[in-house]
């Protein structure tokens, strides 16, 4: 076998590379099974329902961590202000429990949006880096501003501002987001949605 391989360089190259690939593939395949991390499928489903803006207002580093805490530590499901009542209802339906009201400590009534007082902004770029959804535009020593349509209202930028010129305001009603006031029934929506109408 060895003599055969030595006398045919092309064959030996193919066999060596092929067998090494198969060996590593086998090891990795084995490791994928042996070292698989059992994750609770509910956690992934919960994580899908959350807004994924990783704002941390629930007190956890990210949406996945919050979903994990709901499952493993029985954390309350009403701590996600960007998601609002729609997310609470969706989670409650998934878990088969009664949807609680929004946690008053965490909530700022209704969806909010960040606003930068542009006369004060001197372009330190700190809020740029804090924004998890890249909804703030601007550059060093240039005035920054918030893109209304992209802001999820997580409020992470407020504390970073070195001139305290960022504030949270309720989302202004425009022709784009205004809708008929429907009579309020306790409706359980089937999925979390940011579409107001």
């Amino acid at each position, binding site marked *: 076998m060895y003599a055969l391989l030595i006398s045919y360089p092309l064959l030996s190259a193919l066999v060596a590379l092929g067998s*090494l690939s198969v060996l590593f593939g086998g090891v990795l395949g084995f490791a994928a099974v042996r070292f698989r991390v059992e994750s609770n499928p509910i956690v992934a489903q919960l994580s899908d329902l959350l807004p994924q803006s990783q704002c941390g207002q629930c007190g956890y580093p990210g949406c996945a961590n919050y979903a994990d805490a709901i499952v493993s530590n029985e954390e309350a499901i009403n701590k996600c202000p960007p998601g609002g009542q729609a997310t609470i209802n969706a989670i409650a339906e998934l878990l088969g429990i009664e949807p609680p009201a929004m946690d008053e400590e965490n909530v700022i009534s209704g969806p909010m949006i960040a606003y930068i007082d542009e006369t004060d902004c001197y372009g330190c770029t700190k809020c740029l880096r804090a924004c998890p959804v890249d909804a703030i535009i601007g550059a060093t020593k240039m005035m920054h501003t918030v893109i209304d349509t992209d802001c999820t209202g997580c409020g992470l930028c407020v504390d970073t501002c070195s001139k305290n010129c960022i504030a949270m305001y309720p989302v202004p009603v425009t022709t784009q987001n205004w809708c008929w006031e429907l009579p309020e029934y306790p409706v359980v929506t089937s999925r979390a949605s940011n579409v107001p109408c």
Partner: protein
Amino acid sequence: MLSDAALLLSAILVNNFVLSQFLGLCPFMGVSNKVETAIGMAVATTFVMTLASACAYFVFHWLLVPLGLEYLKTIFFILVIASVVQLTKMIIEKTSPVLYRVLGVFLPLITSNCAVLGVVLQNTAKDHSFVQSLLWGFGGALGFALVLVLFSSMRERIAAADVPVALQGTAIGMVAASLISLAFMGFAGLV
């Protein structure tokens, strides 16, 4: 023993992978914006470079040399590095979720770090023994880590400095890197 220590020192300072050999510049510029991410990348790279040096040594001396396939070493080493990185990621994910959270994002990036490929190719070119390969890999990684953390602290300062418009961003980063590189030239002749 003395020569081993000299080899280690040489890999860290004199032949620093980033500043003297210009390998691994991509993660060097890419992950050096914040000190925390730089430290995560540095630890992950140290781990992978040392491990890849050991694995590549065995593949080269037990498989490639007996079959006369030294000319294929680059392809084989890429295969070895990619597999080692993937395996490391899986094992860390299982055994230490905390470490995985720190290193996890950076591990796949290291596959394409040319410093890792550079260190194993140099090991074969310089005909290092097994211990020397390990030392060269570990020392090179330590040097990479040192420079990465140093440079990320500098860039945090640069971010707040008054940089001329034409040089802002990556440009001033490259200028700063070349200045540190010049400073590291001062280590020449140390070993």
